[in-house]
């Protein structure tokens, strides 16, 4: 289902070598579309390496506001000789390939069905810039200028951006501006500009920001009042803590004392990071640890401990492509099962599935509320696509009336008044006991242990006492269903085909539904935001004859959770799986569903 590009509907992909400083040029290009009021998303395909390997940046300009990969490249900027052939192949018929014509192109690499635009980027930059470093960097800026010329970008917007970026260093702004003009003028002079598809200024990006999910998550943690962040660096979650640190340095340093109203601890590994957040949560701080797949595997023992001892803590899994080390710079949604039931024994964990940076922000806050209300670890699962790519998101708003839900914590006064405190008693019938914090009152003292304990918190090896606790934990799971965020639905009674998805698959599903709708195939849609599933999920399943479950893993992991945790019958659920490490695009879904619909019609 590949369509032709049009105005405000095309994809530009830049092929480069990592470590050559193309990130800021690409960001400038993104920002230009955005500031022209045109919706845009940027996806970065970078290697698990620091310097010298191929890297790509893909910018999808979409007046319709589609967020997934388009699955199409209309303009390829081929800056990397090593991947030239592959990049050439990837251009959609009728598309354009820009290359640095400083050096001759290999004759063998040729296509008749696309247009090739040569620009002597290196040559021009060598002529205009002095240092080796600036020559390399300015080549990148120059291709931005060329694209500006080809797609009719607003040069004023670019100029303003540069001025803003280099506010303190006017000479850099000038140099960049010069590079822009080099590229711009060259194409304007040598090629027919603009191309048949162009950027047309619009007003669809006001009240929006460009942000990646990890930054948004960090902001959520900040606003939730999280104070203890423990972590061990791992791609693609590292920038969560980088961003959190940045925000804390800005907003959490006491102006009077210079003291830090936060603690960020770089742990020695993920086991330690997990232990730290449990220790902090037990003490009463809002604590979180961002990690990725291998970290989740290492945290298994502590996750089970947190479940059984009922300690609030927030775990953030920015999923990457597994199994094992897998492809650390590629995306997947493949940790769902291992998070849901992490750890040996009968364990189950509350999961949250934000679909975009906006939800990362709000759900991070919910994660802390849930963890404390339910007294249990909560795992928020994002992924590399959400976490590290550049998304357009509606402005984040904060309700200043928000108060953290600290759950059932007995304070000094309450403890003074009660006869005796028992940690694991279900006094309210909702299976959530009361807890106390260390240091508050002698009556609050209790002993936390991962071994068998009874409802009074005492050690036990008694079959009945033990079972009472695990049965209550199971009842607490039922309570959790009332607390977790509801699903998002688009439902019309006329359709009997449903789609279920979660997280970063959302964009592709939305686009696919539009495509299918245009092709006369109507579908309903439910997006799951949390585990355990709320009742709406069951209702949606009941209301459809066939439900496609779209996800980015090989083994149909959410599909599996649906089988296990609802009453759906297996035949109704049809997995649509995409798991090669690239973000899913709409075609995967549209093609599959329309094929099957054809089959049904043909039968």
């Amino acid at each position, binding site marked *: 289902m590949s369509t032709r590009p049009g105005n405000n509907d095309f994809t530009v992909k830049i092929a480069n070598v990592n470590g050559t400083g193309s990130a800021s040029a690409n960001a400038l290009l993104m920002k230009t579309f955005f500031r022209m009021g045109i919706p845009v998303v940027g996806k970065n395909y970078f290697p698990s390496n620091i310097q010298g390997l191929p890297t790509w940046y893909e910018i999808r300009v979409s007046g319709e506001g589609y967020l997934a990969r388009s699955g199409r490249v209309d303009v390829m900027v081929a800056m990397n000789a090593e991947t030239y052939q592959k990049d050439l192949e990837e251009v959609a018929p009728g598309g354009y390939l820009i290359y640095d014509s400083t050096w001759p192109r290999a004759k063998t690499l040729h296509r008749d069905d696309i247009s090739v635009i040569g620009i002597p980027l290196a040559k021009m930059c060598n002529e205009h810039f002095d240092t080796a470093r600036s020559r390399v960097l300015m080549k990148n800026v120059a291709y931005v200028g060329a694209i500006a010329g080809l797609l009719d970008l607003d040069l004023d917007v670019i100029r303003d951006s540069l001025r803003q970026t280099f506010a303190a260093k006017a000479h850099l702004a000038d140099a960049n501006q010069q590079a822009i003009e080099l590229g711009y003028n060259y194409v304007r002079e040598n090629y027919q500009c603009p191309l048949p598809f162009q950027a047309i200024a619009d007003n669809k990006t006001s009240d929006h920001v460009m942000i990646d999910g990890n930054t948004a998550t960090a902001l959520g943690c900040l606003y939730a009042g999280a104070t*203890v962040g423990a972590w061990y660096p791992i791609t693609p979650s590292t920038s969560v803590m980088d961003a959190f640190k940045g925000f804390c340095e800005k907003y959490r340093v006491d102006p009077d004392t210079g003291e*830090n109203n936060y*603690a960020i601890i770089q742990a020695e590994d993920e086991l*330690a990071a997990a232990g730290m957040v449990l220790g902090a949560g037990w003490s009463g701080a809002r604590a979180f640890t961002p990690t990725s797949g291998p970290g989740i595997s290492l945290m298994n023992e502590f996750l089970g401990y947190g479940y059984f001892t009922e300690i609030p803590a927030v775990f953030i899994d920015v999923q990457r492509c597994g199994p094992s080390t897998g492809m650390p710079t590629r995306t997947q949604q493949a940790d769902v099962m291992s998070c849901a039931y992490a750890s040996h024994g009968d364990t189950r964990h509350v999961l949250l599935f934000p679909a975009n940076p906006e939800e990362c922000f709000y759900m991070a806050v919910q994660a802390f509320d849930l963890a404390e209300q339910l007294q249990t670890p909560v795992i928020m699962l994002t992924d590399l696509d959400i976490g590290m790519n550049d998304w357009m998101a509606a*402005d984040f708003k904060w309700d200043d009336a928000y108060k953290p839900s600290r759950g059932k914590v007995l304070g000094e006064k309450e403890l003074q008044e009660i006869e005796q405190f028992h940690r694991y008693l279900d006094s309210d019938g909702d299976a959530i006991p009361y807890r106390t914090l*260390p240091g508050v009152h002698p009556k609050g003292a209790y002993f936390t242990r991962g071994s068998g304990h009874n409802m009074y918190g005492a050690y036990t090896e008694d079959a009945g006492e033990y079972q009472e606790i695990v049965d209550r934990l199971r009842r607490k799971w039922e309570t959790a269903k009332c607390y977790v965020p509801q699903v998002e639905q688009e439902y019309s009674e006329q359709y009997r085909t449903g789609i279920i998805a979660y997280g970063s698959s959302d964009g592709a599903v939305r686009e696919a539904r539009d495509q299918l709708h245009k092709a006369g195939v109507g579908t309903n849609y439910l997006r799951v935001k949390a585990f355990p599933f709320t009742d709406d999920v069951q209702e949606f399943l009941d209301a459809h004859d066939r439900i496609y479950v779209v996800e980015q893993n090989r083994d149909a992991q959410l599909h599996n959770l649906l089988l296990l945790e609802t009453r759906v019958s297996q035949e109704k659920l049809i997995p649509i799986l995409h798991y090669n490490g690239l973000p899913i695009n709409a075609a995967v879904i549209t093609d599959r569903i329309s094929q099957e619909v054809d089959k049904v019609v043909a039968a």
Partner: protein
Amino acid sequence: MSTLCAGCGHDSVTGALVQAAFELDIPPHRMAKLSGIGCSSKTPAYFLRQSHGFNSVHGRMPSVATGANAANGSLSYVGVSGDGDTLSIGMGQFTHAVRRNLNMLYIIENNGVYGLTKGQFSASADLGSKAKKGDANQQPPIDPCQVVLALGGSFAARSFSGDKQQLVPLIKAGLAHRGFAVIDVISPCVTFNDHEGSTKSYKFTRDHYHPAIHADYVPPSQEILAEYDEGSAMPVELHDGSKIVLRKIDEYYDPTDRSAALTQIQQAQTDGEIITGLLYIDESKPEMQEINRMPSVPLATMSYEKLCPGNDKLQALQDRFR
């Protein structure tokens, strides 16, 4: 109260902890007790019922203590661990707690075996020490005190569960010390490692026991008694104005010189001696809370208003993202 074997060294350590806490007059709810898994790690269940206790998973107590301390540095933290819990499965976390100079007392009830799993050699088993069934251990021991010194830690002591005289003041000093205070307490396992040929038995320990430096804890209010004569007594001033008075039993031992202390400890090891006392102290090293410029109000109880920048700041901030 304890469910350990009658005669287990760990129970004596419990006794010393109770006495030290009593003498220091710490309100029990201002203390937190943490441990891993093992017979030794059961200790926190046997003292100070009005303190919060945390029996974590095997070998990972230091991380829990680190998180707890980050959240609330105003409590006294006591960790009790075993040689298996600290030096085998826990070695990574232990060394990093040393490196962070986490402000807590960390007691290792060291018996050279895994008691709870019935007598396997632990990583502190000495070369040649015999198991109950006769096998001799053939790997060099990991000595937590040497590890502390090699890593640049701030407090390393060794003692013996059978010597309350020495142990109680050490515990007090460890609690008063600002930083990670490690006390390696030889604490014999009567069931699995108290036989002939074991180097962690009561008998062997008594026979090879060598106190090098005695430490007395002197509360802030109290004057140092004149009875110490200049040459052998060395007061170390602590942050709260209290003092640890070191009394040299071994004339040549200098517990403030890292390399010299290490040399002495290694020499004792070579000689088959169990050198004990406050083997090393450095009160000048910043502990984790200081390093991180943590506030005096614990993060755990800090009001949300201090933590949330509010909507206006959020709106302003987002201009960066446009």
